[in-house]
Every structure is written in C-alpha cells, then in structure tokens.
C-alpha cells in the first residue's frame, strides 16, 4: 500500500492529500500489524486475490458453461460453480435465479450489501448505495430503465432481496444469434451487470468489442 509520501517522479505521479477514509484505513492497518493481529503478507494476499482471481470473469465462465447446454438452467449453473471451484467468503450458499421467456430477475440487498463475491467479484459502489437499495424493491422498472434496460410490461420482474446469508446470481437468457458459440465466446457476453440483473447480454455487444 502506498504511504502517501511519494514524491513526484518525473511529472507522472502527482501527490494528492489522502482522504479521511484512506487515513483511517491506514491507521487501522498500522495498528493491526503493530499488535500482530494481521501480517502485511496476509493483506497483500487478499488484495492480490481480489485484483486477479476474483472478478466478473468467474461468473461469466459459470453462465457460459451453463449455456453450453441447450438452455441455461439453474441446475447446470450450480454444477458449473461447483466444477469451477468458486465459493468461500460471501459465497457459501449461492442460489442461481434463471431468467426465462417473460421472466427477469434482479438482485439487491436492502439491508446492507450482500453480494456473491466469488462469482461476479466485488460489488460496484452503486450496488451499496442507498438509492439503489431503496428503489430496486419499490420501483424496479424505473431503476432498470435508468440502466438502459426497458422490459416489456408483460415481463414478470422478480427482485431478490439478499436479507440472509444466501447470495443470488442471475442467470441471463442466452442471447439470440449465439447458436454454436463456444464457452469462451459466451463468457465474453456475460457482464457483471447481467449477473446482478440490471442488464442482459447482447450478441451484438460482442460483435462490436
């Protein structure tokens, strides 16, 4: 972790005052190390894990593996999670909620920020914001519209509020025009937002990227 005392190295690295939260985190870290409660190695290992090994790429692989079969299903997604070995912190009990014709699932945690870390990675900051948490259960169509997702009025919207220890992963419908795509190509379509249910995978997005 940077100590905030770095000097300008050739005009590329401008010093900026640390925010109150950074100062607090730094003071806590120093105290924990001083008291022998954690080691710097352990902190580095956690940061490395979440920077490199945990992220939306994991969930994308799960959804894609489930999608190899004719239709996505929660059973195959659960098998894929087990097969790929994802679990642990904030993901001990993961439930896959599959979208289908006329059914769209979304996930929120009104009480806090419950989120299946091992699969889509760390939650985005908006997921933890009070407006998202309050509005997703009270006006999901308005929120989804702000994310650019306009669903037909007849689509049944199912909002999962993660109040206990169960963590939810939305299994998107396999987009039209992806027949015959392999697992890697399908995984490229599956975004973090699609796993939260505020977006759906689009075949044309992949074609553009």
């Amino acid at each position: 972790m940077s100590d905030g005392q770095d000097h300008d190295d050739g005009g590329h690295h401008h010093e900026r005052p640390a925010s109150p939260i950074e100062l607090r985190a730094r003071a806590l870290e120093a105290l924990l190390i001083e008291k022998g409660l954690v080691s710097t190695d352990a902190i580095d290992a956690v940061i490395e894990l979440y920077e490199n090994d945990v992220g939306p790429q994991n969930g994308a692989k799960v959804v894609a593996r489930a999608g190899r079969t004719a239709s996505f299903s929660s059973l195959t997604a659960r098998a894929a999670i087990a097969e790929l070995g994802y679990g642990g912190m904030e993901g001990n009990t993961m439930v896959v909620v599959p979208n289908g014709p006329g059914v769209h699932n979304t996930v929120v945690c009104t009480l806090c920020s419950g989120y299946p870390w091992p699969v889509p990675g760390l939650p985005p900051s908006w997921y933890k914001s009070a407006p998202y948490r309050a509005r997703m259960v009270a006006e999901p169509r308005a929120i989804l519209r702000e994310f650019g997702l306009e669903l037909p009025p007849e689509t049944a919207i199912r909002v999962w509020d993660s109040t206990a220890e169960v963590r939810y992963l939305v299994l998107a419908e396999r987009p039209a025009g992806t027949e015959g795509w392999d697992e890697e190509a399908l995984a490229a379509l599956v975004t973090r937002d699609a796993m939260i249910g505020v977006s759906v995978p689009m075949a044309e997005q992949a074609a553009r990227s």
Partner: protein
Amino acid sequence: VGWQPRRLRSSAKSPPLGVAVNPRFRPGDRVRVCRVHPAVHTRCPRYVRGVVGVVERVQGTDLLPDRATYGLPTYPEPVYAVEFDSQDLWGESDGPPWTVLLDLFDTDLEPA
C-alpha cells in the same frame, strides 16, 4: 441485549446453510411477517413486516442473526425465500406489478 462488538460473529467464516429437516412451512404456504420493532440488529426489513407472502422455497437452516450476532444462545432455524406481490407491499402502482423475494427466518413468520 446490547452492543457487544467483541462477540460479533464473523460472516466471513459462515458455513453454508444447514439442511431443514422438518420446516414449519412448505413452498406454497401463505405466511404473514410478524410485526416487530426491535432496538437490535434484525434481518427482517421493515417494509415486509405485517405483510402476507407465499413461501417460494426452503433455503435451509441458519442461526438467527438477531441473537447470534450478539453471541446469545441460538439454534439453527429454517430460512425461507418468501415471495411478495408489489401491491401487497406498496399498494396499487401506476405500472405493472412485480414480485419481491426475501430470505426470512422462521422466527419472523406466522401462518396466514
């Protein structure tokens, strides 16, 4: 019951949910969320208290966080995903209705 930070249970070490052997409610059962107003931590959000929903599935068993968080004696109890109609939660809305599903502990529910 008071704030006892030293005895907080670390959620990072939570095991998976246990298996509910004889849950009080089954999928399809109508349940009403108890009206409670505790001063302590609870996983029963205010917006569902007193509202009738339908058990969607039995998730398993877990310790009631309202007690376990404070290190109070507790035992695994069933956790249910309960399905609520938006009109029962909020009243009539201008647009089409939707469904909200929450995980609620056995303690929070009564037959409806």
